[in-house]
């Protein structure tokens, strides 16, 4: 009896690797099969059995809820994020082109005036004449179409290329707002994690509706307005003219739009974990605002040093790793009752 109960405990521990919904539905059934197949006198699960159970559980966690599985908010949020994140970035690109920020005229600094004469605005239609921007947007369109088709691995590869491209050459394109460059990289890092650790955009497509589209559009508008604010206050334009009123208007507009997005999401009861994922991607803005509010002159976004880049990219990298780990590891506190 002691041997049997020890074996059963061992099996139960291994079954703890399975998703909770699956365990609730099938744990006793699988345990019965395992105990029926165990030879007389076996005390512990054999290595091959253990490996098979753990591997199967990991596959099930990555695949998401099955026919009997409950809807899991985190899994669903990741699936939704893998779908909406590329669309969100595409919306931002559209807004950057549609809503340029015109820099103030400068006469006292000839070199700056000369540069401004060539490119008087951040964003705008002139961006379409920058091949590097076109390539980036092209990658964004490809990723968006692929996730809309429900594909998972090909968009992941395109995202990887896009992130490398952003990091390698994005900084050399001054007419693309820096926050957008960093946001794109951060969002892609999380979207890659979501593609790996969730049932994928096909599941996201089942969950998405027009309300998510509205909230994303308002959130993208908030990002664009805050980008305008950033460009209005960042060096080297800081010394040009007092733009406090303009910054205030942008700040109020950005916060107002963000509030509208959050209120809509709450009223419409959208997946709150998706909102958390989206919120995480905005941390570069929070960092920059924190520096600005404390009177710091460090321009995290505009002139990032290696230390800045570490600070800027470590959170999404850690969050992405955590997301994948959370998706594949068991919850020890929720082991099956014996």
């Amino acid at each position: 009896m002691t041997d049997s109960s020890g074996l059963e405990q061992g099996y139960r521990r291994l079954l703890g690797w399975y998703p909770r919904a699956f365990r609730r539905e099938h744990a006793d059934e699988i345990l019965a099969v395992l105990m029926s197949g165990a030879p007389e006198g076996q005390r512990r699960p054999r290595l091959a059995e253990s490996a098979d159970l753990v591997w199967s559980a990991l596959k099930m966690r990555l695949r998401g809820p099955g026919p009997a599985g409950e809807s899991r908010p985190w899994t669903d949020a990741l699936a939704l994020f893998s779908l909406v994140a590329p669309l969100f970035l595409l919306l931002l690109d559209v807004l950057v082109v549609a809503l340029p920020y015109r820099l103030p005229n400068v006469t006292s600094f000839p070199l700056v005036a000369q540069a401004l004469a060539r490119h008087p605005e951040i964003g705008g239609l002139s961006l379409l004449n920058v091949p590097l921007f076109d390539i980036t947007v092209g990658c964004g369109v490809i990723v968006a179409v692929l996730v809309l088709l429900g594909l998972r691995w090909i968009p992941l590869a395109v995202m990887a290329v896009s992130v490398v491209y952003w990091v390698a050459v994005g900084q050399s394109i001054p007419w693309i707002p820096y926050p957008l460059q960093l946001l794109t990289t951060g969002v892609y890092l999380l979207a890659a994690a979501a593609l790996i650790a969730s049932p994928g955009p096909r599941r996201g497509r089942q969950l998405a509706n027009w309300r998510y589209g509205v909230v994303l559009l308002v959130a993208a508008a908030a990002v664009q307005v805050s980008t305008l604010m950033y460009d209005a206050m960042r060096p080297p334009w800081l010394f040009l003219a007092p733009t406090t009123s303009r910054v205030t208007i942008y700040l109020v507009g950005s916060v107002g739009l963000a509030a509208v997005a959050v209120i809509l999401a709450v009223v419409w009861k959208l997946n709150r974990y998706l909102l958390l994922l989206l919120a995480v991607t905005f941390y570069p803005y929070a960092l920059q605002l924190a520096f600005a509010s404390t009177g710091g002159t460090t321009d995290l976004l505009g002139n990032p040093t290696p230390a800045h880049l570490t600070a800027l990219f470590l959170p999404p990298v850690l969050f992405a790793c955590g997301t994948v780990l959370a998706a594949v590891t068991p919850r020890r506190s929720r082991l099956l009752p014996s």
Partner: protein
Amino acid sequence: MQEATFLILTALATGSQHGYGIITDVSQISGGRVRLRAGTLYTALDRLRTDELIAVDREEIVDNRLRRYYRLTPKGSETLAAEAARLQANAAAALSRLKPAGGTT
């Protein structure tokens, strides 16, 4: 279709079976070559239920342990029949091509 999936559907073709029954039946059908482990079996069963190829038939308690019986759905029967026909056609083609070569020696 993977061989394990094909064998599980084949095991259910004669009637509903519980998990351990499927494992022993698959082993028998494959002449002992394929021995499904519990984890692999239930991953496959979960996927087959999602694809609506099988469904839960009934549940029983035997020796204080749960036994859940699975059965083929009409869609599962059609899929299995189509796969069996495909394999049969492939096997027939292979055998018909091997026969003349064997006969000329």
